[in-house]
């Protein structure tokens, strides 16, 4: 009996000591992963996930900036923060050879200006902000452009996002510029145009823009595709229109911070998240669109064909992902404050 015990200990003790190193530190948005995925990862790879969450890109950025080493192995910043952190040397380049499951991703979401060739990031969830209308009041076929928001017929019935970048991107696109413009003269032009829209705006809301639509407070405005999908369960008359100038797209991406403890574990985790069955679990749990094309095919027909969530390739190509505007953000904020205090 004693012998067995010794053998038992000899066998398991080193493993126990070893297990302490088999960890991966993951830093994600709250409510943004199926917790079962973390258990599955441990079961299949033996690597334990040390999971913590943040509420904003700024909080993520500040934390990664302060931690010089022994930080997180995988984090989930949005597009423009990927770009900023990459530029500031806060990310480790990805080794694509260690990420065979990247082949499952939606090709339309790869190699975007915020991270050419996906050298530092892999998209996780994504979506768009475009035009929402209440079809009971506004004929959706008459709305094709961001400019339609300026139509005096909708005075007092317009919703804009309560977000400086989203609102300015819309105005800039309607002027034929990029939504990531940094030229002060063009930003001023966009501000002047927004001043004309302000009296029409009933509400600024980016927490849940579907609510004012469902409450019949607004009939047209900016909204996220995912919110239209949710709103349609209650009211199928809320329609989503990709304007001809192009919608604004967002994506949250997996990256490896420079302060990583174990770059191999980080790659293993990212690759695991790109597996179609795992991506499907996360997509169904979180409710946003998955960047995984294989997982998308596995979803039920109603979801995978809903244009508000999964746009046509043409609409995706016409749109723009938010990139970091650098110091121009100060100019954006200055005009935003002026717009809000008018």
């Amino acid at each position, binding site marked *: 009996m004693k012998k067995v015990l010794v053998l038992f200990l000899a066998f398991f003790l080193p493993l126990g000591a070893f297990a302490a190193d088999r960890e991966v530190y993951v830093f994600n948005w709250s409510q943004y992963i199926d917790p079962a995925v973390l258990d599955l990862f441990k079961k299949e790879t033996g690597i334990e996930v040390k999971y913590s969450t943040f509420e*904003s890109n*700024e909080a993520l*950025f*500040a934390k990664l*900036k302060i931690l010089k080493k022994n930080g997180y192995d995988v984090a989930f910043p949005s597009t423009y923060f990927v770009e900023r952190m990459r530029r*500031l040397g806060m990310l480790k380049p990805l080794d694509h050879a260690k990420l065979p499951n990247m082949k499952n991703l939606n090709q339309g979401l790869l190699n975007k200006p915020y991270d050419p060739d996906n050298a530092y990031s892999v998209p996780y969830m994504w979506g768009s902000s475009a035009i929402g209308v209440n079809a009971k009041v506004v004929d959706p076929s008459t709305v094709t452009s961001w400019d339609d928001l300026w139509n005096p017929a909708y005075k007092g019935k317009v919703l804009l996002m*309560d977000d*400086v970048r989203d609102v300015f991107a819309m105005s800039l696109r309607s002027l034929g510029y990029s939504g990531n413009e940094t030229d002060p003269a063009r930003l001023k032009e966009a501000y002047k145009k927004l001043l004309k829209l*302000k009296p029409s*705006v*009933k*509400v*600024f*809301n980016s927490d849940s823009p579907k*609510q*004012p639509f469902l*409450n*019949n*407070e607004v009939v047209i405005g900016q909204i996220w595709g995912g919110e239209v999908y949710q709103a349609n369960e209650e009211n199928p008359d809320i329609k989503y229109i990709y304007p001809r100038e192009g919608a604004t797209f967002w994506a949250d991406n997996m990256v490896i911070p420079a302060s990583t403890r174990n770059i191999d574990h980080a790659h293993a985790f990212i690759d695991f998240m790109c597996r179609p069955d795992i991506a499907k679990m996360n997509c169904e749990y979180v409710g946003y669109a998955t960047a995984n094309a294989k997982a998308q095919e596995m979803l039920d027909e109603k979801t995978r064909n809903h244009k508000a969530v999964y746009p046509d390739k043409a609409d995706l190509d016409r749109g723009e992902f938010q990139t970091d505007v*650098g*110091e121009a*953000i*100060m100019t*954006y*904020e*200055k005009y*935003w*404050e*002026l717009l*809000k*205090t008018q």
Partner: protein
Amino acid sequence: MTRGSRFRNFAIGSPMLWIAVFVVVPYLIVVLFSFLTRDPEGIVTWTLTLENYREIFSPVFLKVCGNSFILALGTTALTLLLAYPFAYILTRIDENVRRFLLVLMIIPFWTSSLIRTYALIILFKANGLLNTFLLATGLISEPISILYTETAVFIGLVYTLLPFMILPLYASLLKLDRRLMEAARDLGATSRHVFFHIVLPLTLPGIIAGSTMVFLPALGLFYIPDLLGGARSMLIGNFIKNQFLTTSNWPLGSAASVVLTLLMFLLLVWFFISTRRAHSGDMETVK
């Protein structure tokens, strides 16, 4: 050291320690940050500057402060008008009814004010309870717009802050010496005279305490105006939030917080002085 004094040291020391660690230290960090320089590549650089305070006094920030002050003042005036008669009646009714009414006033506080604000949205929205009721009774033919107007903002703020006005008023009205009012009446004073020359001056400490407890939170609250008013204007709270979350200008956001705190501190000093004046005033009246 006796057991009693050890207990006393503990009882005083532990909250003090708590305040020092979780209030004073973080606040000192805010003050320090307000004198540092923004770093576009990171968070701050350790270059001391007064630039943030110079930048704060821009026309936009003054307008933002103006918006917040008007909102807070309006809310204080409205709550005072509503709370005074209510508190007065409370002191005059049967004790059991009074207790019941006080409990009714406290119960909503068991729910988060954010949730209660969402409840107001359900009440006021175009297809909400109020409009459905008014349309059904034929009182109106088109839904009236309340949500996303200034009216909704004031209703929300007054509703949330009303108890903070009622309780101090109630306490000071309860202490009111009835004999003084009887004496005034006996000497031929009209009800108006009694109210303005006796009741009002004697309850001034309650009015000042209540107004402070309403005005200061109203100055900083921004989620109620955002949710009920449609976020079409910018308040101090929004301004500070944007400095941290949009432009990552922590020094400017910190400077704005320090200015807001200083303003509130000055108001508290004013409150303290006026209460003492009001108290010495009632000493004279008694003499």
